[in-house]
Each structure stands twice: as structure tokens, then as C-alpha cells.
């Protein structure tokens, strides 16, 4: 028998949702300060309105749903799912008010794309967007990449047992430190240190490339946030092509790879355990899959002869591949060029790379390397069992911070999530085909949205049907949260309707 949720459940969910909303309102102060600094008063006003609406909603929820009770698993998961939807709506308000988005749905699309670190955009006339709004577009990637819940846990929570339930609900099932609040703060410390280093590196490169110093460092900070959080937005409409710089591309490749690594691995590297990077199953799997998928892309591009020199193959083929594999979505080619200059083989190689993604507990989306590694090990174990004598004891293990045996439970969980992602990619492709796009193009865009990548072959544009926009929003949301929170909210809705 399905039990109908009680009023108390709703109050607890509402109360913690209110806290998350207030957390978001707090972050909107950063673009306001930027706006005042750059003398952009109308954009600053857009964010003032955003803050006011968010604080109003947050306070109402805190007052109406006030409770001293802690979250249980179901409530924690629902708070996370709803938080991502609510912050999408609230985060879209200042974007929409700027006038650079055709409709509120388009602004919501970009807000979800930003928070989920996807990078697909429906912005119009991006080259005339204010510093204030541009900072927000990149900041939401930084916030969403670390996790919206991580922000709340880091800055607004002194420690409650429900914290872990919310932390897990945001697709972060690995604790770096024993306490999730400390784990969240560590994630932020790492991110801020890299932010400073990355901004300096990109800022100086920008100046050498001929950019004005202020613009150069502003772009540096934005591009770092988009690269490290494997987001893919850029302050200009041409994305990375705007800079026309090999050094800029190399630096962003390094940052994208850093962003695709597990925060737990970052912790061990910071602690001086450098061997971990070579022993860890995720890094070794990432290395193998990059080589494998790039081989496919390179063969395809050589076949068609689009990029006849090694440098061109690196800057167009390898760059797009790393961008896709790490789930970033930076482009050094125009979307239409994927269809004109890339053959099907190269596109399939890129789609596979996008579908695989980076490490768990990183800012990437998609299936992720740990699951691919586990599935491969389980497959190897089964193969050995067939080949070896019946009495032989076959065990497979892998190294991920510590040595772990491949158990059926582990393999099953990895396979279920992998299957869920594949279904999500295919469902999006079906919707794309329904709107008249060829299969490969539709699969490309769908995988890019669901795996939170952001590469586009041109389907994502302002004229795209509303149905397809909503489909991609749902894909970005479900892909970022890795299904568990999404399944919980679906179960909750069924319980509301059918429960007794």
C-alpha cells in the first residue's frame, strides 16, 4: 500500500527548500557588486529584483513550514530535486529581465544549462551582454558544478544529520572527509585555489593575446569557472574560437581535465599522494577512453580530410573530443561545422566520448569513469570464470583510493545507472527525431544535454520548438542529479495522487 505524504513531510521539505532559496539569494549579491563596480545599473537592478523575489519566497517558506525536525532519506532527495527546479526559475529571472532571452522559457533553459554545467545556450546577442549578467551565467556554473546543496551545506548549515541525505541526493555519494559539511568546505577550498590560479593564467595569456587587461581577467575568471566546472558557457558568442589562440586552448584543456577528476583524488594529490593518480581506476579508464574515442574521431576526420595537418587535428578534433569527454562543451568550431566538416564516424566517436563523461564526485555529468571501469572489471571477471576451470576462484579488484573487490551489488548498481543514462540519451534523440531532425544529429544534441556537455550541432537555437527546449531541460536536470532524486520525486508524486 502506498502511503500518502503527511502535511509534516511537506512542511519539512518546504522548510529546507526555503533555506536553499535563501542560499541562492545570497549568491545574487555577487553580480550586484559587479554591476555597481562596472557602472551597469540596470543589470544590477535585475539582480536586486532576483534577490528580492528569492528572499520573499525563501522567508515565506521558512515561516510557513517552520520545523525543528530533521530530514529523512525521501525528504532529503525531494528537497534536492525541487531545489534544482526552483533555483532554475529564480536564477532565470535576472537573465530574462536583461532582454537577451526571447522568452522566460529560454531564460530557464540557460539557467538550468548553467546550474547543471551543460553549456547549451539560447541567449541572443551575447556579444552585447553586460559584465553583470555574464558573470552570473558563469557563476551559476561554478555554483552548480560544486553543487547547490554543497553551497548550503558549506555556508548555511552548522551540521544536521539530514545534510548527508541532501549531499547524496545531489549525485555525490563519496565523502572526502568524515563530515559532509567539512567535505563541502574542502570542495570549495580546492575550487577557490584553482579559480585564482586559473584566472591568473588565462588573464595573462589574454593580455599577451592582445586583450585589454580588465577584459582579459574578467574573461579569465569566466572561462575558468566554465572549464573547471565542465560547463562550457563563454562570455562571447564564438565561445573559445573568439580568442584565436593555441595557448588559450591548451590551458583550457588542462583545466577541463582537472575539473573532470574526482575531488577525492584532488584531496589525495593535495595530501602528497601522487601515486594515486596513476593507480586510480578512474584516471586509467579516462586515459584509455580518451585514446579510444580520439582514435575514432581522428580516423573519421582523416577520412573526410577536413583538417589536413596535425596542429589542425589537435585544435579541432582533439579539443572538441576533450571538451566532450570531460562534459565541458567548449567549442573551437561553429555548431554547423559538425555537420559540414565531420563525417558520421567522427561524430559517433564524439557522441561516445560525451556519453562516457569524467569521474564521479567531480563536476562532470554522464555515465562516469568509475562505472565504466567497474563494468569492464565485472565483464573481465565473468569472462575469466568461463575460461578458467570450474573450481578456480576468480576475483577481480580495482583501486579507487583503496583496493575494492568487484561485487555483484557494485556491478549491478553501475549497470543500472549506465542503462538509465543510455535510455535518457535515446529518449531525447526520439524527441529530436519527432521534431524532424536526423537520428545522428538528434542523438548528438540529446547526449550533449543529458550528459551535461553543451556541444551543439546546431539543433539548440532560439527557433527550437518549446517541446524540445523542455525535453532538454528535463534531460539536463535528470542527468545532473543522476536519477535517484528524480526517481524519488516521481515516487512522491505518485504517492500524493494514489496514496492512502
Amino acid at each position, binding site marked *: 500500500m502506498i502511503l500518502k505524504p503527511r502535511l509534516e513531510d511537506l512542511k519539512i521539505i518546504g522548510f529546507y527548500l526555503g533555506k536553499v532559496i535563501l542560499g541562492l539569494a545570497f549568491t545574487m549579491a555577487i553580480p550586484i557588486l559587479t554591476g555597481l563596480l562596472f557602472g551597469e545599473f*540596470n543589470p544590477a*537592478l535585475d539582480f536586486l529584483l532576483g534577490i528580492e523575489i528569492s528572499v520573499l519566497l525563501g522567508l515565506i517558506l521558512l*515561516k510557513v513550514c517552520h520545523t525543528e525536525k530533521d530530514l529523512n532519506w525521501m525528504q532529503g532527495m525531494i528537497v534536492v530535486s525541487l531545489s534544482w527546479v526552483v533555483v532554475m526559475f529564480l536564477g532565470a529571472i535576472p537573465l530574462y529581465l536583461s532582454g537577451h532571452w526571447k522568452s522566460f522559457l529560454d531564460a530557464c533553459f540557460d539557467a538550468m544549462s548553467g546550474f547543471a554545467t551543460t553549456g547549451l545556450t539560447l541567449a541572443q546577442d551575447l*556579444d552585447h551582454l553586460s559584465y553583470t549578467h555574464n558573470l552570473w551565467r558563469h557563476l551559476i556554473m561554478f555554483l552548480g558544478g560544486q553543487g547547490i546543496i554543497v553551497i548550503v551545506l558549506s555556508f548555511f548549515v552548522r551540521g544536521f544529520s539530514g545534510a548527508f541525505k541532501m549531499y547524496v541526493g545531489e549525485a555525490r555519494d563519496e565523502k572526502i572527509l568524515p563530515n559532509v559539511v567539512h567535505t563541502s568546505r574542502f570542495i570549495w577550498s580546492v575550487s577557490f585555489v584553482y579559480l585564482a590560479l586559473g584566472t591568473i593564467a588565462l588573464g595573462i595569456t589574454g593580455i599577451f593575446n592582445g586583450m585589454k587587461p580588465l577584459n582579459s581577467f574578467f574573461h579569465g575568471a569566466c572561462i575558468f569557472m566554465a572549464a573547471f566546472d565542465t560547463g562550457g558557457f563563454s562570455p*562571447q*558568442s*564564438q565561445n573559445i574560437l573568439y580568442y*584565436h589562440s593555441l595557448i588559450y586552448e591548451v590551458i583550457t584543456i588542462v583545466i577541463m581535465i582537472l575539473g573532470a577528476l574526482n575531488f577525492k583524488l584532488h584531496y589525495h594529490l593535495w595530501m602528497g599522494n601522487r601515486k594515486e593518480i596513476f593507480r586510480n581506476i578512474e584516471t586509467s579508464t579516462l586515459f584509455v577512453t580518451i585514446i579510444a574515442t580520439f582514435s575514432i574521431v581522428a580516423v573519421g576526420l582523416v577520412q573526410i580530410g577536413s583538417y589536413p595537418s596535425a596542429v589542425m587535428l589537435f*585544435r579541432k578534433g582533439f579539443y572538441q573530443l576533450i571538451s566532450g569527454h570531460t562534459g565541458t562543451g567548449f567549442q573551437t568550431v561553429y555548431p554547423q561545422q559538425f555537420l559540414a566538416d565531420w563525417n558520421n564516424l567522427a561524430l559517433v566517436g564524439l557522441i561516445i566520448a560525451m556519453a562516457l563523461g569524467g569521474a564521479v564526485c567531480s563536476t562532470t555529468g554522464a555515465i562516469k569513469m568509475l562505472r565504466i571501469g567497474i563494468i569492464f572489471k565485472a565483464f573481465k571477471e565473468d569472462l575469466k570464470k568461463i575460461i578458467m576451470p570450474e573450481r578456480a576462484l576468480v576475483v577481480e579488484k580495482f583501486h579507487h583510493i583503496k583496493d575494492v573487490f568487484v561485487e555483484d551489488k557494485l556491478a549491478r548498481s553501475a549497470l543500472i545507472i549506465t542503462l538509465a543514462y543510455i535510455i535518457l540519451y535515446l529518449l531525447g534523440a526520439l524527441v529530436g527525431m519527432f521534431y524532424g531532425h536526423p537520428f545522428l544529429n538528434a542523438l548528438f544534441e540529446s547526449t550533449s544535454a543529458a550528459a551535461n556537455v553543451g556541444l551543439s550541432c546546431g539543433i539548440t537555437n532560439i527557433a527550437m520548438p518549446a517541446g524540445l527546449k523542455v525535453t532538454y531541460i528535463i534531460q539536463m536536470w535528470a542527468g545532473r542529479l543522476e536519477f535517484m532524486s528524480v526517481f524519488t520525486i516521481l515516487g512522491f508524486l505518485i504517492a500524493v495522487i494514489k496514496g492512502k
Partner: protein
Amino acid sequence: MKTIYKVSLIILLFILIGYPGSPVFSQGISSTELIKGAKEYDAKTITYTGEAIGDVMIRGEFAWVNINDGENALGAWLSASLAKEIEFTGSYKTRGDSLEVTGIFNRACLEHGGDLDIHVQKLRKISPGMKINRSLQPDKRNLSLILFGALFLIWILTLFRHK
């Protein structure tokens, strides 16, 4: 009959003027046409019009300028001396110079790592850019004040409730 002669003469003139320059796509090629038909236009002389945006990035004796025609922005590689003619580039606070560039279009430029770009030979400023004055929007300001009032009211109500 005179009209027929006149029309024939005009057509003949057009053909004669157009013939020596047949590989030149002189008028109105949009960025979308160039990107989609990149193979067709590759290594041909084209004329492209749009607004200079972002930074003029000087690289030694040359410079990069990105030019947006309202559909996409394309990279233009030109001599630093030509780039100096550009006074305004488009941003939130400025409308960039409107430029007409004529040069060689590259689908995947060998010199620039495969970038789709234009190597500019001629640059003409169609109209100069300007600073954009943006005054505070009163409807947003008023709404902001109303919401501030609502927040203040909630705060007052909270105080009473505590008492």
C-alpha cells in the same frame, strides 16, 4: 525597340563588369551562408559586413577582430595598421564600428590551426560605432521598491509574532 537596346546594353555591361571578378563574392554573404557553405567559399575572395565586437587583439604586425553580422561572429585576420582604423568595438556599453571587409575566406585556415576565418585585404568603415547611454529603467526601479516594501512588511510581521 530603343528600350530593348538599352536593356541589352545594361545586361552586357553587367556581364562584362562581372566576368573578370567571377571568383569574388562581392555582396551580402552572411556568416551563416559562409559557415554552411564553407567548402564552396573556401579560398575565395569574399566581402563580409558586420559589427566589430569584443577586443581588437593585436598580434605583432597583424590583429584579430571578430565581426558579428547579427547571425554569428567570424574572425578577421588583418594588418595591425588596418585594425587601427577601428575605433569602437561592440560591448554592453558600446555599439561597434560597422565594417565591410574584403578578403580570402578560409574554411579551415592552415596558418591558424584550422580556424574558419577571413584574411582581410580591404577594410571599409560603413558607419562609426558609439557609446550607448542607458538610463535607469523606471518600471524595474518601481517594482524593486514595491518588493522591498513587501520584504519590510514581512520583517515587521515577524517581529510582532515574536513578541
